[in-house]
């Protein structure tokens, strides 16, 4: 067992090509219950990507305006960085990843590659239709988070590939958005069900709406064809939840119908399904009425 902690991306990519290499960032998924689990890694060589400057930055792409977050950026940095104020739903998700001690170590890249059905930061990223960049000796490719996540602990990451960045499209930055999570014990628990919504109302009509649901399917999921039914929905200034309730309720119901949650010690499948309905409704309604409410406050 060896330990590598390169400071340069090229070096890391080269080391990742070795089949014995296991990538680690914060280690908050890898090293839990370590005394018992370390045997499963046998002769692996470990490589930390935590200290690679390219993976540590948060920036705006000059040409596209996308928000680019390096794979090693921590939940704490997302929650506190000025540029991330444009993605409040992601900040809300970052703020519920474990407690503060975990947020100080947990990386956005690790959250995606670990591919837990309950991964929190993954949920707004799916709602945003964010894109990951994957790099190997063979080059660099990009794909939507929606297709990167394949199943519990399964991703499209090929051997030898590193996740280098997460790119959040300019079109969702600063738009009304919300992440909601249901859990039993806050910081030491994981999510029972979560939902994220991002939407825009222009001249009293919904011009943009994207939703995602977490912990209710093998991967966080979205239903773009269902989201489309929100397009054009009239949301008058000062609209309240009840004004948009009909259409929103039907969207929420269709998300609940598409959910196939598991039953476990935390909750039954039936309860989770019922909560998908509630959380999606609240997330969309909260997002759509956000502007109206914000205007009321201004007046």
């Amino acid at each position, binding site marked *: *067992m*060896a*330990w590598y*902690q390169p400071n340069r991306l090229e070096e890391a990519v080269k080391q990742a090509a070795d089949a014995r290499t296991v990538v*680690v960032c*914060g*280690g*908050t998924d890898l*090293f*839990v*219950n*370590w*005394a*018992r689990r*370390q*045997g499963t890694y*046998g*002769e692996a060589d*470990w490589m*930390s990507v*935590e200290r690679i400057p390219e993976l540590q930055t948060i920036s705006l792409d000059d040409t596209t305006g996308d928000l680019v977050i390096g794979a090693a950026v921590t939940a*704490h*940095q997302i*929650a*506190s*960085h*000025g540029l*991330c*104020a444009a993605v*409040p739903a992601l*900040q*809300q998700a970052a*703020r519920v990843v*474990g*407690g*503060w*001690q*975990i947020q*100080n*170590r947990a990386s956005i890249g690790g959250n995606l590659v670990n591919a837990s059905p309950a991964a929190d930061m993954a949920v707004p990223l799916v709602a945003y239709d964010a894109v990951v960049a994957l790099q190997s000796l063979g080059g660099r490719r990009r794909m939507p988070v929606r297709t990167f996540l394949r199943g519990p602990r399964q991703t499209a990451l090929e051997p030898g590939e590193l996740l280098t960045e997460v790119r959040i499209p300019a079109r969702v930055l600063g738009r009304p958005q919300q992440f909601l999570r249901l859990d039993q014990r*806050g*910081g*030491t628990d994981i999510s029972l069900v979560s939902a994220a919504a991002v939407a825009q109302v222009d001249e009293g009509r919904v011009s943009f709406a994207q939703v995602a649901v977490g912990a209710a399917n093998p991967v966080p999921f979205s239903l773009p064809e269902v989201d489309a039914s929100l397009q054009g929905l009239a949301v008058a200034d000062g609209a309240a939840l009840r004004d948009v309730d009909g259409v929103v309720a039907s969207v929420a119901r269709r998300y609940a119908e598409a959910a196939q949650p598991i039953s476990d010690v935390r909750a039954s499948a039936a309860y989770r399904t019922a909560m998908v309905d509630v959380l999606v409704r609240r997330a969309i309604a909260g997002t759509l009425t956000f502007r109206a409410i914000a205007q009321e406050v201004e007046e």
Partner: protein
Amino acid sequence: MGDLRSSVQVPVTVLVNGRSYTVDVEPRLLLVHLLRDVLGLTGTHIGCDTSQCGACTVLVDGKAVKSCTMLAVQADGCSVTTIEGIGSVENLHPVQEGFWEKHGLQCGFCTPGVIMAAADLLRQHPNPTDEEIREGLEGVICRCTGYQNIVRAVRYAAERMQSADGEVEVAATAGLDRGEGSQGGATS
């Protein structure tokens, strides 16, 4: 652990409570075991094997982390503060004083971790609301005192640090922060 091939040793340099150590460790050694078994700093406790209890919380470069979920090699080049380094019997850290004054502990098992988590909390929110204290301490579990007195203890420390400002030396935060990222901006 026993049946694993004894593997390479990697040199690790850490500044623990202001003192520099360079030791050869196996990569798989957890930071908490470096602190307790190699350096003999047993004030940092292990209370679970699921990374939930927070008894093992220490500050790495000023930030609270669970030392049971981090390898010693991951702390290479970092500054680590444990409960032994945050204050002394003659000169308690305000958080330690708060736990004393407000009865923030009973058995004391969780206390080293709670104090370190509280030190990071107060670095980020020098004047926290009770809700912020509770949120900041979500990653620690106390099984006997109850959280009311812990919140009171942290509030006491906050007031003490505000009023004493400058007079009390705050070991936990002095010079350890790498100062990366902006602390302001969006909270919750």
